[in-house]
């Protein structure tokens, strides 16, 4: 009894809060809907609210100056934009950055969070968590120990890695790599036959000119933690036979060591790995602390753009090429026949190579 009363009470409070912030919520729409017929019924007297007001009450008043945001808290939303730097401040409503570092503050190893500005996500989560629940008892209890083979997660703090001392030298790891990986990723992990390169990317990923081609993303420049790399290759590689027992924990560590070596990664403050370095979980964690671009990663802080919903005679900055010129657009390359050249198959040819439906396997 008391618990359902509590639920009711908290729902009432939630509803009040929701209507204040004008949030999108199922409970709320019924509240909103009930006000419309009331206004409609009072035909004799002049309606106390215009149709417009009623609609604004129910749906929020977009584009009318008196913004009532149904999803984002109005106050937070007001300060939603700003510079990149602002938004990387954990206190900015649009920042998903957090202060707690899961590996003791090393290299921005942060967890990220749902930005405060997404208030309905927080409110719904809270409500669903505290909503009354029947416990069905349909599942079957299982011991955590029974998950030993399935649970192969390896975290940036090292949890999940094999015991210290399991491993092999980098030279041995290279042999493993040549046997199990080179046919796709190339003898030097440089990528082959269109398969992804694993090493050789430049550390400076900045690109001032938008027409510059994309830079290769490899272990050194695009993986913030070596643990993630190890986790991934055990989980998913070699592509045709993952979680491979003939490679084993020692083999996967050796392969990780070899690729780290080929990429020129360091440990203990800049020391180079050698062919005879013994590569185990301890060494892996040492290298993981010196991943060159780890501190370049930041938590999503979009929206990165702020556009007003302008209707007529819009500002040059949002028209055409961003300078008001509507003739200055890019097109596909024009071929000798005067027709644009696209990077796609022609329709007729496409029919045979297309995946799925065409092959009759609905």
């Amino acid at each position: 009894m008391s618990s359902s009363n509590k639920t009711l009470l908290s729902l009432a409070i939630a509803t009040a809060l929701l209507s204040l912030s004008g949030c999108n919520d199922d409970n709320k729409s019924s509240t909103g809907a009930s006000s419309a017929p009331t206004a409609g019924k009072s035909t004799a007297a002049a309606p106390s609210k215009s149709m417009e007001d009623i609609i604004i009450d129910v749906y929020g008043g977009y584009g009318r100056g008196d913004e009532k945001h149904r999803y984002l808290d109005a106050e937070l939303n007001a300060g939603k934009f700003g510079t990149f730097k602002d938004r990387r401040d954990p206190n900015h409503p649009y920042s998903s950055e957090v202060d707690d570092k899961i590996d003791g503050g090393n290299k921005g190893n942060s967890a990220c969070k749902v930005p405060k500005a997404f208030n309905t996500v927080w409110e719904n989560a809270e409500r669903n968590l505290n909503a009354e629940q029947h416990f069905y008892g349909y599942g079957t209890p299982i011991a955590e120990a029974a998950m030993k083979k399935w649970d192969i997660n390896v975290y940036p703090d090292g949890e999940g890695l094999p015991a210290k001392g399991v491993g092999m030298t980098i030279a041995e790891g290279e042999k493993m790599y040549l046997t199990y990986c080179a046919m796709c990723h190339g003898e030097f992990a440089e990528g082959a036959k269109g398969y992804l390169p694993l090493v050789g990317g430049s550390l400076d990923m900045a690109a001032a000119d938008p027409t510059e081609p994309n830079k290769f993303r490899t272990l050194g420049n695009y993986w913030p933690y070596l643990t993630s790399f190890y986790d991934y290759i055990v989980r998913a590689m070699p592509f045709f036979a993952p979680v491979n027992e003939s490679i084993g924990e020692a083999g996967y560590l050796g392969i990780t060591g070899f690729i780290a070596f080929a990429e020129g990664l360091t440990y203990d403050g800049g020391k180079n790995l050698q062919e005879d370095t013994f590569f185990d979980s301890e060494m892996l964690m040492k290298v993981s602390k010196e991943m060159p671009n780890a501190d370049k990663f930041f938590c999503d802080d979009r929206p990165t753009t702020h556009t007003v919903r302008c209707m007529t005679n819009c500002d040059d900055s949002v028209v055409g090429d961003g300078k008001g010129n509507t003739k200055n657009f890019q097109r596909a390359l024009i071929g000798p026949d005067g027709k644009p050249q696209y990077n796609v198959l022609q329709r007729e040819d496409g029919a045979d190579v297309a995946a799925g439906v065409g092959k009759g396997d609905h």
Partner: protein
Amino acid sequence: MSETLEKVAVQTEESRTQTRRAFIKGGLAVAGTVMFTKAAEAAYDPKSAVKAYAGKKEITDVLTDGPQRRMLGKGIMSSTYSMPSVYEKEVRKRTLEWLTPDTLATISMTPIQSMHGMIVPNGLHFDRFHGGAPDIDPATHKLVIHGLVERPLMFTMDDLKRMPSVTRIHFLECPANGALEWKGIQVNSVQWTHGMMSCSEWTGVPLSVLLKEAGVKPEGKWLLPEGADASGLVRSIPMEIALDDCMVAYAMNGEALRPGQGYPIRLVVPGCEGNMWVKYLRRIKVTDKPLHHREESSKYSELMPDGTIQRFSWVQETNSVITYPSPDYKMSGPGRYVAKGIAWSGRGRITHVDVSLDGGRNWKEAKFTSVALPKAWTRFEFEFDWDGSEMLLMSRATDETGYVQPPMAQLRNAVGTNGVYHRTAMVTWLIHDWKGNRAGEIENVQF
């Protein structure tokens, strides 16, 4: 919406005045008649129908029966699972072979240009594979919830279907949708520009109910859902998103999930990156920290112009596209056109779609032709008269958070062109001059 609001307000004012006048004139009965006559006068003149066809040659040859009128069709059990008409062969998923070296780790695209309504049929749902589509026997498939829970639990498919369920319509979009064209024009169909996306009705168990059944602990801040397929894909999902509106789905559009979509179960994470909707779901570990899996570091993170990298970009931002006219079609001469399109936002409902015919200087509000559900495709239409001269067709969506879809130039300035994911800027269709040598062609161009 402001314009719509004004319209509604004006109409209400007018009709109120009419009613009052009718009352003054002579009571209720008369009021009805007056209103009827008035409405009929204003609304419809059958003679106007003739005008629109003036000058078109009339058909005078007597129509004859086709063969189908004179013979029987196929029997009731000729197909126990109905397939599209043989004339619909062009409406199919397609892939681009140059995207990846392997057909087992790549993507197919939905023919958005041929889709109607809010729902993509299961056979045309785009697929993203990281290790092929396995055939998993539901009789042996299990889902385990473990980690920071009071009572780790295993569920069979039967167990899950006995639990309370929820059915909702949501779009599912790969964050790489649109990625082919960060640096310019490469493709000439909505299938290629926006086809890494579909919208379906999903049915499953609310994730919050399952987590609570297992006794999720307060220190559990993250969920690590994992698949049972060769990729063993994992993503790190913050508890707030998990408890908000996620579900463990076993059905889409009324039937079991298709193997390419995670049969027998997948996670549904409305509004968020398709990669988070883990397929072939076999395990959810509750933890106090994210995993930083490959799909949230090496992939599904966005490189910025200054060399920094944005990660955990969960939400699919507000977006829209005009599907007709679009590069798959041709204009058929000057006259009235009904432009059709879709708009969607990972943050909630779409509130407005505006269309520009002049490169973004002036905009007019389109009307919705479907319901506008949160995190679902919303259909819009916009009528315009084409005088046969060159025209730039664009759409711009606004969602209930007030976020307005940006023009491409603005997005490019903010995030550069190397991010790969989340290119949600407007696209532009150039309609060629009716008198030129590419008369009526519709070309994909980029500002």
